[in-house]
């Protein structure tokens, strides 16, 4: 069942003469219990899309249906079952942690919100900070507080715009596990943006790649990385480094040196041929590492293509 349906969504800003198309005719769905990653370089239209899904920005054209209801006509009913957290949104600094959470518990009309918030405070390791003023929290503690707020109404659809941007690796891990557990146990659907590609790979069932307001790819994280033909081969040579360099130049490989280590970008299917050439030339390496392409490689490839164009 599709929890979120977006059809031909477009957002244009500015007068006709200086019109800027932030989101250009995009369509996608998020199913129940699915984590969908929204990726793309800065200015790709990710945040504008999220703003439209929250009703903060009005679409120029297109249709948004959440829980099978048109958004504009059912705003309050829908938002009661949604929530969000974004790196660019804070909570009032002069309120204590519990005061902020109680405010949102009431705003979302959560039943037994006090008990629920106490559980969230424990789960996000904020118990010791419960009575602290929000402006005394570190950026990592703040991010955990914002995530607490995002889960306060047990949302069926959660929009997370770079939620782990300021977290330590161990707390990021806790948050990822928390999200995955919610998805698994309560069928929460999540729309997720992040610049941490490893995190996207771990969390997302599917990824939409936006560039200049358009969807340019839609696939699983593994599917997107398979579109990268190249892999990285790291070789360490104790001797004959000049001969290795000559061989690489002769065969016009793309490579770089760091001391005795060579980093080679090569098509995955040609790795065997390359190793054969080394063997024929009797050039022996002491270590070899073959790194498969990652989502980050796909991201960088798109950015480079954009910059070249």
């Amino acid at each position, binding site marked *: 069942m599709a929890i979120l349906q977006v059809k031909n969504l477009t*957002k244009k800003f500015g007068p006709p003469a200086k019109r800027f198309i*932030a989101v250009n005719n995009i369509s996608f769905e998020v199913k129940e219990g699915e984590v969908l990653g929204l990726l793309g370089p800065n200015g790709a239209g990710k945040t504008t899309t999220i703003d439209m899904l929250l009703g*903060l920005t009005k679409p120029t054209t297109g249709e948004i249906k959440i829980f099978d209801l048109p958004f504009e006509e059912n705003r309050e009913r829908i938002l009661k079952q949604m929530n969000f957290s974004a790196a660019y949104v804070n*909570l009032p600094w002069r309120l204590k942690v519990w005061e902020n959470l109680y405010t949102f518990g009431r*705003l*979302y*009309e959560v039943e037994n919100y006090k008990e629920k918030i106490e559980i969230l405070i424990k789960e996000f390791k904020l118990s010791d900070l419960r009575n602290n003023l929000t402006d005394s929290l570190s950026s990592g503690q703040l991010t955990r507080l914002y995530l607490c707020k995002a889960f306060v109404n047990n949302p069926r659809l959660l929009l997370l715009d770079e939620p782990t941007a300021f977290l330590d690796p161990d707390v990021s891990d806790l948050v990822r596990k928390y999200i995955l557990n919610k998805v698994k146990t309560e069928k929460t659907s999540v729309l997720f943006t992040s610049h941490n590609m490893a995190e996207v790979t771990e969390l997302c069932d599917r990824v939409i790649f936006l560039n200049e307001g358009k969807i340019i790819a839609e696939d699983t994280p593994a599917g997107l990385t398979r579109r990268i033909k190249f892999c990285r081969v790291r070789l360490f040579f104790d001797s004959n480094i000049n001969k290795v360099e000559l061989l690489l130049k002769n065969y016009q490989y793309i490579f770089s040196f760091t001391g005795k280590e060579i980093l080679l970008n090569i098509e995955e299917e040609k790795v065997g041929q390359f190793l054969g050439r080394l063997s024929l030339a009797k050039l022996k390496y002491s270590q070899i590492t073959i790194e498969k392409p990652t989502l980050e490689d796909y991201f960088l490839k798109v950015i480079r293509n954009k910059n070249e164009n």
Partner: protein
Amino acid sequence: MAVVIRHLYIWPRSPERFMWTFGWPFFGLLIWGLTISFLQKSSSSNFSFITMIIGGIVFWEIIVQPQREISINFIDEMWNKNILNLFASPLTKAEYLTALVIIGIIKMFITLISLTIGSIVLYKFNIFASFGFHIPILFINLIIFGITLGLFVNSLILRFGISVQEIAWAIVAIVQPFVCVLYPLSSLPVWVQRISIILPPTYVFEEMRRILFSNKIEISNLILALLLNIIYLALTLWFFSVMFEKAREHGRLVKLN
């Protein structure tokens, strides 16, 4: 020199700094000039100027408090980068505005109590004893006008962004010379009177002085003020709603954060 030039760059682009340079000194000159000129003309009469001025100050706060609370609490959400949390929640515009109005009225009553006690202790002037059962209609008019000003300021912020936040503090000072807080309508130049008579508080301050001086009241003036207030409030609510939708349409709402 670089710092001087840096501040000169920003000056023409900052309406609030223009107000500091030209606006406030001018309004100060206007209000105190008109007050003193009225006092000079009336120096032979036998009523208590202190009562009139204290009454004016207390009544004026009934406009100022709801306006400031409504506008500054709205701006406070932007300073806190919390405005998107609110409007991305199930909270409706009407609920949000109602909450701002309620907090404005609560704070106004707290101020009113402290000013009443202060004026009794310091000047032996009891506002409730002086105005008796006329107080509800006098206060309702002032409260509605304060609410209207507050909502109007919030609408301007939605339209022009946080850069016009100074108006939250300025608007009452801009209005004050026209609504005859400390001097009667007749002491104003004719062209200013034309503006004053379309502002509901003018009638309230005129009737306040009439009660203090002659213990009489023209209730029709207060009903006219109430009608004007209702019209202005309705127009301002419509204006806020339009500005809110325009802010969503043009992406200005998210920029307020």
